[in-house]
């Protein structure tokens, strides 16, 4: 579906993260993403951080396009293609969500939709603080880790998850974040025999499963993913190792 939507609110969440909300006609599931464009910027993929009637994208400013997007405000228009991708399977009973950095945002609709515990990991307190009141508002158990220890546990997501798993039993871990985090988290899950789902990222053009620019091995991240199960990930040789640039050339992650 292609839709020109109007921004109903745009909010700065911390020094580098913005949320843009808009009403859109399409239906979406947690874990799906959209391609967002306005004149003057390149179209980019962003996960939906709200999937109700009012949808949202939450993004970190890391380059030109996210910066242009962060300059938008209420009433401005966006061209939205989507939603794309498979979304998360939410059928497991006891779930631990693990979000790293901006990867926390796509997990928020799950936290809203079902009882689940969550680990929020980030570089520092500034990056992650906004999540805490949301999780508290929803009455969800949650833990925070920061690399610099400025909030919560000092250390990375995988270390914190290891702690959490010491005291809690989960049917499944659902994660989104930097691939390096996912890589070690996946290893942890395999070791412990815990099922998991992880949302991956690759360079996207069509987002519709046709151009082949987002391949990990022989899987299309846009259409076969972005969410893959632990078993699927175990078979991916490129996961955590290589990705491809816009020309399709391989590069080390």
């Amino acid at each position: 579906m292609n839709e020109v939507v109007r921004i109903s609110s745009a909010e700065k969440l911390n020094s580098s993260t913005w949320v843009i909300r808009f009403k859109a006609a399409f239906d979406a599931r947690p874990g799906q993403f959209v391609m967002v464009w306005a004149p003057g910027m390149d179209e980019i993929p962003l996960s939906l951080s709200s999937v109700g009637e009012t949808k949202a994208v939450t993004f970190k400013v890391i380059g030109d396009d996210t910066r242009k997007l962060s300059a938008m405000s209420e009433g401005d228009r966006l061209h939205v293609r989507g939603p794309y991708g498979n979304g998360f399977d939410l059928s497991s009973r006891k779930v631990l969500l693990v979000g790293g950095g901006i990867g926390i945002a796509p997990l928020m609709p799950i936290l809203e939709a079902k009882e689940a515990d969550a680990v929020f990991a980030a570089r520092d307190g500034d990056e992650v603080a906004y999540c805490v009141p949301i999780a508290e508002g929803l009455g969800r158990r949650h833990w925070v880790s920061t690399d610099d220890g400025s909030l919560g546990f000092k250390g990375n997501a995988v270390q914190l998850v290891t702690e959490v798993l010491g005291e809690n039993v989960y049917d499944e871990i659902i994660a989104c974040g930097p691939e390096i985090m996912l890589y070690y988290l996946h290893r942890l899950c395999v070791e412990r025999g815990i099922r998991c789902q992880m949302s991956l990222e690759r360079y996207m053009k069509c987002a519709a499963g046709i151009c082949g620019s987002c391949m990990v091995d022989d899987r299309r991240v846009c259409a076969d993913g972005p969410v893959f199960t632990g078993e699927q990930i175990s078979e991916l040789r490129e996961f955590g190792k290589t990705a491809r640039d816009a020309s399709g050339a391989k590069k080390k992650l």
Partner: protein
Amino acid sequence: MNRLATAVGSVKLKRPGIVASGILDETGPSMARMLSGGAGAVVSKSIGSVAKGGHANPNFIETGCWTMNAMGLPNPGIDAFREEMEVAVAAGKVIGSVYAASPAEFASLAGKMEDYGAAAVELNLSCPHAAGFGMEMGTDPAMVRSIVSETKDAVSIPVWAKLTPNTHILASIGRAVEDGGGDAVVAINTLKAMHIVPEFGKPFLSNRFGGLSGRAIKPVGVRAVFDLRSAVSIPIVGVGGIYGHRDALEYIMAGACAFQVGSAVSEMGPGIFESINAGLKEFMAEFGYKSIKDMEGIAHE
């Protein structure tokens, strides 16, 4: 009996459906997957001499009726593509698609594709959204002839030429391919098109112009194949808007000996080849056709 077996000249195919160029064929593993999923062959992404990132996003949009793209021929360059071809060729028949700005460059790229194990080379004479390449050369019969013949001289694998429908001289272009020694024509590539977003007052694609494909172009493609069948005697591969076996049959009956599928992979998934194969088999059994050949061009009768 394998009713679905066919051949494009000397290129034998167990199944008549081929993955069109630009569709999940930029990497080796992806091509291998398509080959194991019911396609008779896969045409690689069009590859040039050097790496190219292609046009900036947005470069793709689709509706229920059409698909439009201006990828701008992104590709890692012919040398880097060697390792992708290795993986793909191990899994089945690969047609190497190439684009270039001169006959000599076409010939040299084709030579590399032959080295990599391509079963044939497909010359992209038809991309409508890459300045200096594709249809700009593909609407000049003399140029087409010399590209084909220079490539023929350089390789011993069959040379296919992929044609643009954006012209009123399609038959002459087809004959130029045949005169140049080409082994097959592939029709059609996309129609030159544009989508404008009224709320922004701007073209959607970063390249402004793009190529139209999908359901919308099937009747144009079928007509092109029908026209070519009267113009040339080399084999024709049909492509454009094939979503099911009845679409494929239109192309075959218009004169194609094999067909390619592109846009439909988005809506129907990579499983589309299996479902087209099943539909073809059932249709052929019901109507008593023993082979694809039996149906080729019958709409002319």
